[in-house]
């Protein structure tokens, strides 16, 4: 039994992390980036918030949020769900965390866990709902429609977001414009606003980073745990497999696989990244398991008659997870870079506005905003993730405790 004042391991690490200024600043900046990804339709969309024609008021913006004809990609739908549920979820969790502050360890933990589960449950439920019952509507380009109606002498009131553009609607008559007040970063060769595509790209890049890493960390943990726990022949067999995978140059493997997949979507790209990257965490976990396997608490658990699964996942794994967490933060950054590389080489998903995609069109068209803007976005995100990763690593290291 823990005493009420005893901080949990998580709290110690979090306390240590808070003491590291650069890490904290980066974390806040990263959260701001995530917030940008979530709330980007409020910033940029060509669907007006308010649309009044002939006294009839509608909100095409609201209607478009779950429109599968417009937000074709599941990633966008997911982020829109986050946006819609966030007014409920965020204050709820903050309140729950504050109200449980003084409680003893176990009770606090379980109450907080329930709150998080409820929040996740809500998000998943809404997402499942909008996916199962998709709304689809006829495509209307509102700025053009507005012009048409105005030309006919009708009265139209339309309130647009700050950037009244869509990340996908093209306009050949406005292609390759330079920077101006209305297009801060100009337009690309299909006449789409670069700024809008860039902010929407945040969603794609962050998703690819997080999901690809989540997939390969899961694979890595399972494989590494099995290898490290059982040792002997199982271990050497798995080690040989890992060596074979590592031997193949990863970029080469990625490009080869990408070439074979038809109709590539960003989900394929996540899987491709996961398939080449799982060996790293697998080795880390294996090493930790080999060390922890011989410690007394494992022997105690075995003596107490716990099953193998319980021992691996409930006893050893929590102690072995530290280094994996660190490698995960760095992994997100490198997955974003891999996606950019693939898109840059023309092997990405061309229907999504990913940063690599924009960068690639900049290379071939020689429009400087198309190169610098996504380049900077990639640089910023990757740097922030690295700084956070470094903070976590230092916070986990007992020798560096402040």
């Amino acid at each position, binding site marked *: 039994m823990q005493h009420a004042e005893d901080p949990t391991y998580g709290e110690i690490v979090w306390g240590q992390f808070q003491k590291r200024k650069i890490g904290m600043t980066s974390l806040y900046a990263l959260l701001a980036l995530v917030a940008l990804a979530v709330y980007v339709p409020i910033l940029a969309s060509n669907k007006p918030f308010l649309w009044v024609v002939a006294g009839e008021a509608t909100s095409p913006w609201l209607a478009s949020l779950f429109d599968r004809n417009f937000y074709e990609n599941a990633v966008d739908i997911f982020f829109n769900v986050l946006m819609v549920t966030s007014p409920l979820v965020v204050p709820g969790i903050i309140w729950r965390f504050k109200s449980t502050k003084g409680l003893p360890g176990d009770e606090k933990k379980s109450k907080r866990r329930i709150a998080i589960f409820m929040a996740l449950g809500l998000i998943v439920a809404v997402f499942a709902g909008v996916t199962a019952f998709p709304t689809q509507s*006829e495509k209307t380009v509102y700025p053009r429609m507005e012009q048409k109606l105005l030309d006919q002498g009708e009265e139209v009131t339309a309130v647009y977001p700050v950037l009244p553009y869509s990340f996908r609607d093209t306009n050949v008559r406005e292609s390759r414009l330079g920077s101006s007040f209305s297009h801060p970063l100009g337009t690309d060769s299909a006449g789409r606003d670069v700024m809008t595509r860039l902010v929407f790209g945040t969603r794609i890049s962050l998703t690819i980073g997080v999901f690809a890493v989540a997939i390969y960390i899961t694979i890595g943990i399972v494989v590494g745990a099995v290898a490290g726990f059982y040792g002997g022949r199982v271990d050497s067999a798995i080690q040989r497999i890992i060596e074979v995978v590592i031997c193949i140059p990863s970029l080469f493997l990625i490009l080869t696989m990408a070439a074979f997949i038809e109709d590539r979507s960003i989900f394929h790209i996540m899987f491709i990244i996961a398939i080449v990257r799982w060996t790293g965490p697998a080795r880390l976990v294996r090493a930790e398991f080999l060390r922890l396997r011989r410690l007394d608490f494992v022997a105690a658990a075995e003596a107490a008659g716990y099953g193998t699964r319980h021992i691996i996942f409930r006893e050893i794994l929590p102690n072995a997870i530290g280094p994996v967490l660190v490698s995960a933060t760095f992994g997100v950054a490198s997955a974003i870079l891999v996606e950019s590389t693939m898109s840059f080489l023309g092997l990405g998903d061309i229907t999504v506005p990913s940063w690599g995609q924009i960068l690639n069109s900049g290379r071939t068209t020689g429009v400087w905003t198309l190169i610098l803007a996504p380049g900077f976005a990639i640089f910023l995100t990757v740097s922030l993730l690295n700084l956070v990763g470094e903070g976590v690593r230092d916070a986990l290291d007992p020798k560096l405790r402040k």
Partner: protein
Amino acid sequence: MSRSGPNGLVIGGLALILVGTLYNAIQINNAEQLGIDNQKKLDEILKNGVRTSGQSGGGGGFSGDVVNNATLMGEGCLTDQAKAALVDPSNILTQPTQCRAKGEHTRGGTLRSVLASDPRGLNPYIANGADVTEYGLLMNDYMAERDINNPDKWLPRLAVSVTTPDDGLTYIVKLQEGVYWHKPTVDWESGDFDWLKGDGPDGRHEFTADDYVFVWDMMQNQQVAGRIDSMRNYFEAMESFEAIDDHTLKVTYNERLYTNLANLLELYPSPRWLFMYDQDGRKYEEATWGLKLNEHWYNQKGIGVGPYKFKAWESGVKLEFEANEMYWGEPPAFDRILRPVVKDQNAFPRKVKAGEVDITSIQPEQYKTVVLDADGEILDNEHIKTTKFATLTYFYMGWNLDDPKFEDKRVRQAMTMSFDRQGIIDSVFHGLGTLHTGPYPQQVACYDKSIEPYPYDIDAAKALLEEAGWTDSDNDGIRDKVINGEKVPFEFTFLMYGSSTEYETLASIWREALLEVGVKMTPSPVEWSTMLKKMDEREFDVYSGAWVPGWDTDLMQLWHSSEADKPQSSNRIGFRNEDADRIAEELRRTFDEDRRTELCHEFHALVHEEQPYTFFYARERPVLYWDHLNEPQFSLNWPYQDKRYWSFQSAPER
């Protein structure tokens, strides 16, 4: 633990991007610097009055004389034998309107022009590929060639006279005498190749009618694969091909077809004395020589009787030709033709700017940044000029007509109408092309210029789809229709070549317009090999394609219904139309030009109405060149960049 592992990777990645950007910037800078340096050198030379022209020496070992053949029109560049033969009124061949290199030019020097990729081989009957044709024309000669200014006329080359005593069933071809093959490019010093020596001067072989009979033998031998395999169906009507004497051929057909003559005249000779022997001089056996020929030791080198000899080919580095000093015809304009391999197309303008090449073609995007956006001089150098040339090639989107969705011609018309072709030509291809409407190149009489292209009209497209029964019955923004008792939403994928940014942009534009019409299109960019496979197996809804027609377009291959059911045929869209079949068959047998034009126009109107292809555009290709080269002339016929017609105005200063 693993402190430096992933961290190093990410930082490495970042550093790589940084280094890449810097390197790119530096390279551009370097290229500029080089250009400036070259310019300085040039200015200095001009100021000091030192000219290398007319002298031996200089950078490229330049030895030349200034030639003016502006007045030498017509027979000036023909051999005496050809001149004499042209007097005969029954001769199909005619006087050339110009000698090869036009105007005042300097003979000699090295022409350097970039090569985007290595050819697959240099034997024109084995190696497939459009580029092989171009090298073939440098190294070899046809029997007769289309006039560069008037492609309807045939000029004498290896044939001095072609006559047909029975109007199209038999052709008698008299060949040029005194023509010798190049000496093969082998190690003569070693003595291992003495068996290759002929009886002519310097151990050369004389060109005879048998060198053409050998081509016929290759065609008859089904073991010979490669390029000749796809040529066989053009010669189906040919019955016999024999040498009457050393310089006369007699060719007979079992059917008069319009295409017979052109197919016959555009044949290269191929040396039996080389291709029937292995590297040690042993003759191949009768039963297997066809198979052996496919892997012949000389296929990676080139041989011919033409103005340039094969010199060297280093894969990924360069391809090199040198003047044939014993050429039988008009002496070649350059001493050497060098094709350095540059795989990155983005680097082409830099190569010109740095003075590493004399001429290069460029991409539309580069045309925009280098030429259209240039204020004043192109690439800041007054000696770099630009020109563009029209080609016969047209681009299109081919619909899979076996798919019930695209059965109705109104649907296909609607697809064309929702494709902003003119807008895309202007904004994506920077005006390098014109709207195209039919199955012929725009330069020929067969192309009916009076046919109006379909406009870009979303509303009209919607109306056509309504008419064809495609309505949005479930209000989901995507049209649907009941086909065979099943409700089908109008969705399709667009198969396209993945490595072209222009097409990526085009696909995005089309996709958004189609969505407005109520049709969901998903672009599917794939590798070239995958694309070919999918097209051959008809696994597509619509694909983006290009067609390079010849001057005479034979409709059978692309449009006849008999081709629609063959595997891997060119009629991969499955176009079956009785009227089209009738016209295509009749055209093959019609020789009267007026009647032909009439039929062509009828066909053009039919195909435009049916829209089995969404015809897109015929492109123009821009080039950059240094002005020591005379303004390059381009052929309408393939190969467009016929370097035999180019020449230096003055000695290039290098």
